[in-house]
């Protein structure tokens, strides 16, 4: 049994690397960050090699040559009011400023993160005491606090460093505490506790590695700020003391002569600008790479409609998989009245060098007032199929690479963006799995229903509100007048799903596409929702495409079923045909591996192995590696969906014996 599992794993590992570019590559792709990195690296190298450069002593005064302009002989950047070489002072000063800024942020990061992690991990009273302390520090204006610290300790570079570090501790502490609180309640922390780890081990080996990226992000965005603050304190004469040079004190000295010798302040000012800007650009780049939300593509704005590129598609005629009922004539008859007819739909995701064929040529139709079930395990492509129908797959990375979706005889993919938008929620509506994440948390459910109604109809708010209450009554929500004012979090899961269904019904759609609408619900609530959907279908004559993984739910609500595996339909027929006489070995085994209530004597027969990865599909049958009936022919080439009569079809060379009544 380990054979198919191991082979997929072996191939996935090297592929992963090519699919997700390395952090350095990502940084190189961000040109601004790359520029920042190059400039910052240049400044660092200069600062590091300063002691070995042929520079004059930065503190050696030479009153005879005071206030020389830049490009003077022997003094490339000129001299200051005491005749000291500006280039030398600038490089030594940059060295000091960098050292102070970086050590101050390391200091602040260390203590701030320690406070944050400890208070986030222990919570309760510890958290309360530590955070109120931090709040107190934050209540003072930071520059005042820094001034007070320096005033108490006396001026000097080290004291300025402490002041800046202390002032920045709250920033780290708050940030890290927030992240830690989110991690502490994750199951792996409980799991470590049960593995016998103590608090200190958990903090160091479980929590710290997970907050490390946030510490790095916070540091990369604060170093620049710290350098500015050091310069600020030195500018006020509280940091570096004469004759030592740092960028802030040079700026402070130059200020007095700004009208006569502009270069005295412009040169250190320019250096601060270059340094801080390069650090900030680099910091932003690092944040973009490390932040998981940005990594997942939150910054890339998805297109309103999935990208459609059917250039490589050779049309339904060659697809060979579209013939459900055998003869094209019979097929046409069956589909004549169909509200939805999908032909050879192909949806792909391109990530790095990999093409994931999530949907690889799916054809089916939904008749009027019919409920068709799309059944499959996770990764079988059933949800992507549903989203592709109205171009809702996020693009990038999704592309519709082929196929036609005929809605009432017109191809959706030939329509204009506006037309597709008018269909969504209008003639065809979706119901999703998790109503809590599809409803907006800040608007009352009534308002959200009104919005859905008014997006498609020109009616007044009042009329729409009445319609909304009517809809809530239709989905059997008790006391709908009052419930319309509730917010999603005030409703139970079942009630929220009723609102989701009400929203789908808002514009009397001809087709409802329901993507696992009852999976997140308790069984008693699921039973109610299924009953409700059945009733609504009878009363309004709506057609339903019902996506689920549960054969029990299928037999409750669906007239016909299509079973999906690895992006293709492997079997299709009426619910009775598929459930009682499954022809495809996968369907048969999928039905058999679910324990059934009241049939404990039946052995639960697991299907060995795992489904193939859709970026590495085999040539022949995708199920062959897990199938005990597989022969060489199964792996030789693509297999068609063969009709078995009465609308029952199977994509298998050696189907199970089918007994039709």
């Amino acid at each position, binding site marked *: 049994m380990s054979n198919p599992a191991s082979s997929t*794993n072996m191939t*996935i590992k090297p592929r992963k690397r090519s699919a997700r570019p390395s952090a350095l590559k990502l940084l190189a792709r961000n040109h601004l960050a790359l520029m920042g990195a190059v400039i910052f690296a240049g400044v660092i190298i200069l600062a590091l090699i300063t002691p070995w450069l042929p520079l004059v002593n930065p503190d050696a005064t030479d009153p005879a040559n005071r206030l020389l302009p830049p490009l003077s002989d022997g003094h490339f950047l000129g001299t200051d009011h005491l005749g000291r070489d500006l280039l030398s002072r600038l490089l030594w000063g940059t060295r000091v400023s960098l050292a102070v800024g970086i050590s101050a942020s390391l200091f602040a990061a260390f203590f701030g993160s320690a406070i944050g992690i400890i208070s986030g991990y222990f919570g309760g009273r510890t958290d309360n005491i530590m955070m109120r302390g931090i709040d107190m520090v934050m209540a003072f204006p930071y520059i005042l606090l820094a001034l007070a610290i320096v005033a108490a300790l006396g001026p000097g570079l080290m004291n300025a460093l402490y002041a800046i570090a202390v002032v920045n501790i709250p920033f780290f502490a708050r940030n890290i505490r927030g992240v830690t609180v989110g991690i502490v309640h994750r199951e792996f922390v409980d799991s470590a506790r049960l593995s*016998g780890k103590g608090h200190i081990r958990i903090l160091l*080996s479980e929590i710290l590695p997970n907050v490390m990226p946030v510490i790095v992000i916070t540091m990369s965005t604060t170093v620049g700020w710290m350098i500015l603050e050091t310069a600020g304190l030195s500018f006020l004469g509280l940091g570096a003391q004469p004759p030592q040079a740092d960028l802030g004190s040079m700026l402070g000295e130059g200020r007095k002569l700004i009208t006569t010798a502009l270069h005295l302040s412009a040169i250190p000012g320019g250096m601060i600008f270059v340094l801080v800007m390069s650090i900030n650009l680099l910091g932003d780049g690092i944040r973009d790479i490390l932040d998981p939300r940005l990594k997942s593509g939150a910054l890339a704005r998805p297109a309103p409609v999935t990208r459609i590129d059917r250039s490589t598609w050779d049309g339904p005629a060659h697809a060979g998989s579209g013939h459900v009922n055998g003869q094209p004539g019979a097929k046409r008859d069956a589909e004549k009245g169909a509200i939805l007819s999908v032909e050879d739909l192909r949806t792909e995701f391109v990530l790095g060098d990999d093409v994931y064929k999530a949907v690889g040529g799916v054809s089916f139709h939904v008749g009027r007032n019919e409920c068709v079930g799309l059944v499959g395990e996770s990764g079988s492509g059933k949800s992507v199929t549903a989203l592709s129908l109205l171009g809702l797959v996020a693009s990038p990375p999704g592309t519709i690479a082929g196929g036609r979706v005929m809605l009432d005889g017109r191809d959706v993919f030939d329509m204009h963006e506006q037309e597709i938008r008018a269909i969504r929620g209008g003639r065809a509506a979706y119901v999703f799995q998790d109503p809590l994440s599809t409803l907006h948390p800040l608007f009352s459910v009534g308002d959200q229903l009104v919005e859905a109604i008014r997006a498609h109809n020109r009616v007044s708010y009042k009329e729409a509100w009445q319609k909304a209450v009517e809809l809530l009554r239709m989905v059997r929500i008790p006391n709908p007048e009052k419930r319309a004012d509730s917010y999603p979090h005030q409703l139970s899961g079942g009630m929220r799903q009723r609102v989701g269904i009400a929203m789908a019904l808002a514009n009397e759609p001809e087709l409802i596409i329901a993507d696992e609408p009852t999976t997140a619900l308790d069984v008693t*609530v699921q039973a109610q929702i299924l009953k*409700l959907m059945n009733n609504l279908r009878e009363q309004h004559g709506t057609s339903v495409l019902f996506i689920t993984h549960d*054969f029990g739910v299928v037999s409750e609500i669906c007239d016909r079923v299509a079973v999906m595996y690895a992006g293709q339909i492997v079997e299709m027929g009426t619910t009775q045909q598929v459930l009682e006489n499954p022809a495809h070995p996968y369907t048969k085994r999928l039905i058999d591996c679910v324990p059934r209530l009241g049939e404990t004597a039946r052995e639960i027969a*697991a299907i060995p192995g795992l489904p193939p990865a859709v970026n590495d599909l085999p040539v022949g049958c995708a199920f062959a590696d897990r199938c005990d009936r597989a022969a060489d022919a199964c792996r030789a080439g693509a297999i068609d969906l063969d009709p078995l009569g009465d609308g029952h079809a199977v994509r298998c060379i050696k189907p199970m014996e089918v007994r039709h009544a």
Partner: protein
Amino acid sequence: MPDIVLQTRDLVRVFGGGRTLFMGKKPSVYAVRGVDIAVRKGETLGIVGESGCGKSTLARMLVGLDRPSDGDIQLSGAQLNDLLSQDRHALSRRIQYVFQDPISSLNPRKLIRETLSAPLRYLRNLSGKALEDRLKELMDCVNLRPEFLDRYPHEFSGGQAQRIGIARALAAEPEIIVLDEPVSALDVSVQAQVLNLLDDLKARFGLTYIFISHDLSVVEAVSDRVAVMYFGRVVEQAAGKALFVEPRHPYTRLLLDSAPVPGKRGLQGEEANAELPDPMAPPPGCAFAPRCPYAQDDCRKKIPDADFGLDNHAAACFHPLGRMA
């Protein structure tokens, strides 16, 4: 009864409560409201209930991740609370836990080897070669190849990750494993693999399981005894399949009627008022009374109780359903 390995008495867990700074009362949520269960060595006790019934809180208390507000838990005669304050490790060597979400129960930044070594190192004091050998043995137990030790959690499918979660629990060599919805996050075909694996391991190591799930058919398939929970209490318990054949509590009946069965049609869902009572203000009587078609006046005044033994079939109901003629 010497063969009882775990027993709870009047177990209660209240969240919140206490007083605010200005002596106002803070609201308290009753998650578990008096649960008595007992488990014999080598059996599987199934606990079924819907979301919010307190089954996960109960599970966390059994392994010491949470402490009861009232009542006690006995582990082979020893008080779990005493064990917890004296020696956490001793408790973790006896009873272990398998989490619902296999991926999130593994630290994303650690190799499987590090995750699995922790219990061996801290609970069983293994190191060096002995630890290495045991790691391989554990991977073999859950049918995973030893190369997988040097991978990160994101490289695994849900079913494989759950095997690792089971291996982590086994590493402590416990007598009892609490399985909190171990297969609900998995695909059906993988679900069966994991259920069969659990069955093998139980026979091989003589384990005792407490199997918690919302899925009646799964619980029926794996359990020797089943307890049904509703709103923080056990409402019905029976040995064998009696509970599924002739449920006594109306709630159990409703659960059974609500589960869709492949090949059958015509579910009878209840009307729309099917909601749990407010856990901040539990009703004085039976919590199921507002939904119950058989509820009478006495149901709303007093909480029905029952004597849940080890082999009997009892329901906490004043008007239990009789035999179907």
